[in-house]
């Protein structure tokens, strides 16, 4: 190295970390409270939305992804894409099994899609 380069370390402010902690605690209270209100299928949507928000806060601030390289950010997104593929393809299998087996007499047992109402 001929030139003297200085590398920058991003040190989070204590107030930022405490604010994130407060937000996470409030979100935990909120998700618990909402679960006591009967909203049908909407309950799980709200629960997952809150969980994704909490996880994003942890990843972005606590894990410091906001200050990482673009390559690291790409890796994080790629991980989520693979998780999406895992869930999507698994579901496309299970949710369409009954289409194929519906008419078959041997398919009416527990453990396959045809058994669901």
């Amino acid at each position: 190295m001929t030139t003297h380069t200085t590398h920058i370390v991003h040190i989070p402010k204590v107030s930022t970390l405490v604010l994130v902690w407060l937000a996470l605690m409030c979100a935990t209270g909120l998700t618990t409270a909402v679960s006591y209100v009967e909203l049908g299928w909407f309950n799980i949507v709200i629960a997952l939305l809150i969980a994704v928000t909490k996880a994003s806060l942890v990843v972005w601030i606590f894990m410091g992804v906001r200050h990482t390289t673009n390559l690291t950010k790409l890796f994080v997104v790629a991980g989520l894409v693979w998780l999406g593929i895992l869930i999507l393809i698994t579901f496309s299998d299970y949710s369409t099994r009954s289409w194929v087996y519906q008419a078959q007499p041997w398919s009416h047992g527990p453990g396959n899609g045809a058994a669901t109402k």
Partner: protein
Amino acid sequence: MADTLVPAGEDAAVKEKHLRHHFATAEQQMDAATLGMWTFLITEVLFFGGMFASYAVYRNIYLDAFASTSQYMNVVLGGTNTAVLICSSLTMALAVRAAQLSNRKHLTLFLILTMIFGTVFLVIKGFEYHSKWVEGLVPGIHWSGYLEHPEFAHHAQILFSLYFYMTGMHALHMVVGLGLLSYLLIQARRNIFKATYFAPVEMIGLYWHFVDIVWIFLFPLLYLIGHRR
């Protein structure tokens, strides 16, 4: 964001032999470590993802049985554990910050606090497992089947199997995390970490936060999906 920017001298990193010869700069070394850690964490995401996917499939098929059975989860203990883990994430983040500022005293303090929170989590988890055993809600080993809705007894075992697999794997990760934190604590006592070298603290911090995220999803999916009375 108005974060404090502290230049970390590369000369110091070279002098203290923290900069490995195959890296050009300390920054490149740190970026490589971060990328490697995230690659590992992605494999962990997919490892837990498999269990979350099977949970989603079974819950989709046996929606009523899962809603009925989730009432047997202890929301108070589960919620307390969520709060405890979030606190441990805060102290972990503060530990990384202390290492970046070469503050050995605070680093030691926050590492110990993180370990205390982690241990409290595992103790509460232990009490939960114990009460599940007493109630006969451990499928395959100790299943009494005395449920309020006996028609769901078969499918209730699927939820409890998933509960024990997922929280069990999570607890195992916590135990590994506590081991890693002990290593950090010993190194911190030897005054290894400072502004020019704190990569191990930050990497183990990433792992600890990841384990927290897994629980952030486990808590609503296992404890909060029940019908309320």
